[in-house]
């Protein structure tokens, strides 16, 4: 029996549409992925706890070399845990099930806290980091604190990843008429022109990103966009390849409509 292979020309746009259709229609598959990801978390916690006990020499003394390898394993496991978090967040965004729990929040204070968490990565690369407040008083924003922390973490961590050693990152928070505008600017590798349309797509990674970070998931910006839009806000960017990228988002004033 002969097999006939049929070909059809598929444009990038078709592929993107097919991918969107898959994620919006296949709730059974999504449930399966969600359950599988959820099930991964117990063994991941087990690995984390075991490695932590070994590293703390609770089971017996370890050599310098063993410590180095155990730390690598711990670090890899942390990445897996982070990946499961991202997959679950992305599935919630796709399914429209991301709940937002808004409360009045001091955005500047929130950014300072995020910066403290990731300061070691900033210092490791010798990056000059600035946090600036725009003109006027910043009013408390009614936001889901944890979700907006995720957005700032994603954007600033990306900026660090894709900015060469000794570069510059600046975060600006400005009170505007209709909301708070936040900007994360870096002097990094920038986004190639051909990739700009796809940068917020799930699992998408710009072509020049792999040289700087092989292990990124391509979910961070997709999740960030989902979170900002769930707040009724807007996220966008401008970028010149080789010179840097500026991400902006607006968190609108007023109450967020709950699902």
């Amino acid at each position, binding site marked *: 029996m002969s097999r006939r292979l049929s070909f059809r020309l598929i444009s990038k746009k078709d592929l993107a549409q097919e991918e969107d259709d898959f994620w919006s229609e296949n709730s059974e598959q999504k449930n399966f992925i969600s359950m599988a990801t959820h099930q991964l978390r*117990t063994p991941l*916690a*087990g690995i984390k706890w075991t490695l932590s006990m070994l590293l703390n020499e609770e089971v017996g003394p370890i050599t310098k070399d063993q410590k180095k390898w155990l730390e690598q394993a711990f670090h890899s496991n942390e990445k897996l845990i982070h990946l499961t978090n991202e997959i679950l967040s992305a599935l919630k965004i796709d399914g429209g099930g991301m709940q937002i729990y808004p409360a009045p929040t001091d955005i500047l204070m929130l950014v300072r806290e995020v910066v403290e968490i990731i300061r070691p990565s900033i210092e490791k690369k010798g990056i000059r980091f600035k946090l600036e407040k725009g003109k006027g008083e910043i009013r408390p924003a009614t936001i889901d604190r944890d979700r907006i922390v995720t957005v700032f973490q994603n954007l600033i961590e990306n900026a660090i990843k894709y900015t060469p050693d000794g570069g510059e990152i600046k975060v600006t928070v400005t009170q505007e008429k209709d909301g708070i505008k936040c900007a994360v600017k870096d002097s990094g590798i920038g986004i190639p022109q051909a990739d700009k349309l796809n940068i917020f797509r799930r699992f998408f990674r710009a072509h020049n990103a792999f040289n700087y970070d092989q292990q990124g998931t391509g979910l961070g910006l997709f999740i960030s966009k989902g979170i900002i839009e769930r707040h009724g806000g807007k996220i966008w960017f401008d970028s010149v390849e080789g010179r840097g990228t500026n991400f902006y988002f607006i968190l609108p004033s007023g109450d967020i409509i709950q699902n």
Partner: protein
Amino acid sequence: MNTEQKKVMWVEDDEFLSGLISQRLTKEQFEIFTANNGEDALTILKEHTPDIFLLDLMLPGEVDGFKLLETIRANEKTKDKPVLLFSNLASKEDMDKGYGLGATKFLIKSSMVPDEIIAEIKSALGV
């Protein structure tokens, strides 16, 4: 105050996780009661009164972590004892439900290491 007399109940269906923390708690001189499901936990509670409870939310069988928490809060002997709820996810719905039922604290397993769990137990017990 030392931890020697303190009784900890750890209800967790994953035997590996349960074993890890039990071993760590034994080193800290706690007395430990472990159960792999809610029904076994209820049987233990008929004879013993732990000073603190560590409950996994998702348990096999009819009695999950929430139901256990309700039972603990409804019992005169245990109603004021600290209860730490453990979950795999920081679902706000679960957190709200847990705190609504009287949980002392809600903890995410994969966000913590054993030292931090021990510190939480000691802090909740005030030891």
